[in-house]
């Protein structure tokens, strides 16, 4: 057990965690940030995807204690009112079915669009292939990413 400090969604939080506790469980069980989901625990499904300094990272696969000087963004912090262009596009295309995978999908898409504002289908495949959707919302994820790209280029864009 050690006291660590994490910067999550712009806020510094101190917490007591076992040394080897992955970020996923620190978020869910210690901080009650339950938007980040458990799907496989071994880096295969991407349900637990968060952003660390803007890049997608699997929270089940990285120790919380190793992230003390990093900026962590979880789905709760993307924009609490759902106004981020990716969130808006996700709603407007009505991507979710069960919704369980969608936090990971939204964050991975956010990172992709930050790097590649106008992604091709291949860019989308490469950036998103790590995140499973059991319900099969892939066709909509593709559309939503393109829609979000549009929202981002026309500020205050149509919704």
């Amino acid at each position, binding site marked *: *057990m050690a006291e660590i400090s994490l910067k999550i969604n712009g806020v510094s939080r101190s917490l007591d965690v*076992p040394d*080897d*506790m*992955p970020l996923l*469980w620190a978020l869910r*069980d*210690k901080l*009650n*940030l*339950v*938007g*980040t*989901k*458990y*799907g*496989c*625990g*071994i880096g*295969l*499904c991407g*349900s637990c995807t968060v952003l660390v300094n803007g890049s997608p990272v699997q929270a089940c696969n990285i120790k919380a204690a190793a992230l003390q000087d990093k900026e962590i963004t*979880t*789905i*709760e912090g*993307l*924009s*609490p*009112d*759902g106004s981020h262009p990716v*969130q808006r596009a*996700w*709603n*407007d295309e*009505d991507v*979710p*079915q*069960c*919704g*369980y*995978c*969608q*936090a990971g999908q*939204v964050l991975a898409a956010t990172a992709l669009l930050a790097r590649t504002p106008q992604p091709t289908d291949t860019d*989308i*495949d*490469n950036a*998103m*292939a*790590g*995140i*499973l*959707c*059991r*319900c*099969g*919302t*892939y*066709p909509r994820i*593709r559309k939503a990413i393109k829609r979000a790209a549009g929202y981002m280029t026309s500020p205050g864009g149509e919704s």
Partner: protein
Amino acid sequence: MKRPQADNSPDTGGQMDRRTFLQTSLLASGALLIGVGHADTASGAEQAGESWAPNLYLRIEADNRVTIVSKNPEAGQGVKTAFPMVVAECLDVDWQQVRVEQAPLDDRYGRQVVGGSRGTPDGWDDLRIAGTAARQLLIAAAAVRWGVQPAECSTANGSVNHAASGRTAAYAALRGTAATLPVPEVASLELKSRPEEFRLLGRFVPGVDNPKILTGQPLFGCDTRLDGMLYAVFEKCPTFGGKVRSANIEQIRALPGITHAFVVEGTDNLAGLMPGVAIVATSWWEANAARRQLKIDWATSHADSSEEYERQAAALKEQPGETLRADGDVEKALGAAVKIVEASYYYPFVSHANLEPQNCTALFHESGKLELWAPSQYPKGGRQLVAETLGIPEDRIHVNLVRIGGGFGRRLVNDFMVEAAWIAREVRRPVQLQWTREDDMRHDFYRPAAWHHFRAGIDADGRMSAFDHHFISFGRDGKPVSGAGLSPDHYPAGLVPNFRLRQSLIETHVPTGPWRSPGHSAYCWAYQSFFDEVALAAGRDQLDFRLDLLSRSFGEPPLDLARTSGTLRVAAEKAGWGRKLSANRGLGMAFHFDHGGFVSHVAEVVATGNAVHVEKVWSGIDIGPVINLSGARNQVEGCVVDALSTAQLEITFADGAAQQGNFDQYGLLRINQAPEVECHFIQSDNSPSGLGEPPFAPATPAIANAIFAATGTRIRELPFRRAGISV
């Protein structure tokens, strides 16, 4: 203990001769409540009295918003959005005025199940009655207020208008008057039923839970957080049904963060509380870390294996089996056939693999009351199971319904509920039981494997004159296990003059259960692939052969021929069936009918050697009027992706245990492999049916047939890789 039926047990109402009642009241909050309820005709009179409680509610609030209570669990099938849309349509309110509230499990609501694509057909009448009656009542209230005839009034966006005098009143302003008026007669209500009458239905409406999903608010079962809550894992025997002889409990209790560790003796019910060891800790991570130190001596009583199943299936093939249906004379017709086509098909066991692994949160109050937060598709069955196993009366158990991270039939079985309840009663603290992915995959209720041996005779007109089918699947005590049955009335029975269906069963100890479109999701592929072979042998075009097959019946038709053909024609036309393709491309088709829905698909694939990419699927769908266009399309797209995914997967057994545990061995489809899906709905005024299942079954054969067209490889065994095909 009684073994609960995992299969079609979640079933009440619908068939009964019912009377529908309406009730209104003004609540303390000032809201006007309108309820719809049922009573069977015999006891209707008494039930409509004092104690009668409606099973569907809507409330008109003081701020002119409308609250609609959603009674069914939501697992991604879209019911929580679609149902309120129906009420809003009939009530004539703006969608923005509508608020949706999730109901807990409550017997007054009647059937509260996600399964069998039954939500939509079951709810259709009640929802329309509630909305239409409320609107009529509000019009009557305005007419009284203004001293005019109701017929002179109209409604729009939550207001009643009187055009002649220019008067208008918001629904909320009419609550008081409405509550004093007699409720309309149900029989007198004119319910909207035709797509051309709809204003909101049929539109693309995003899900009501999207704002929470997209901002990560607590919504799912595993998101439940209670004061002082502990976290649990539960280790069961890898060999199904194994019992605990002994375990190193003391050692586990000493590990960091562990608050409790104990043996659960359990029962013999594979769908109930199985024996195992519970470990409880202050965080789930610690509970699961301690589990790695766990040493259990298990007592097992079987060693079922896939290899052994295969040996038995091969032996049974040579036996006659039990004849389930025989029309005409199959042997004679085969003897007279111009050509005989013979082929065998096999599909494996598969897992549901819901992305949210099974979990449940439970709190046992000192008063003896038990409270559960359960992602269950069939919470009532879960409450029953908990009551029986723990000896707690059902009325002392309260079940909160939480959003479900994928159902697909897995959560019709409530083993996770009884485990959580048992553990919570032991520890007397709120507890969340969270299964690992491996628990989930190794303790599923699998879709059973089966072998289909077909022989078809082709007559001089190129038609199927005989169809002989030997079906080998799994059983217990001489009956097919849950999810393994095949109806003797399933097509092509009734579509060919000479038909025979024989069945043989292999004894199994593996838990099985309903898996999205139970049975259909598997055998449709076998039938529709074999039809392809027969059409080819008859030298006929696939579309022409199928439409011809659907053009006549022998005795009772096994499905609505016109509606089925309609979907096939639409899919074929939109896909450009018959167009010229380059050599490495192929189109394939299939039709099907299940759970009230008619769906045909045409798939296009492009091949590079044996690596294929499914580019696009065109779907023709007839489910009556579409309620939410977004939800409907989402289900079609999801079913197609799921079908392609599942056709790459298998669960195998050795030593009585499942051999796959996580996505490295059970690799669900990824975005780069997913096709584009184009939906074409045939709108009709047949009552609507659900879409969570019907688009699945025909997707696998449409794709497999397209792969044959593109590569010349006929897939007769799943997963595809058995035929050397990768996607």
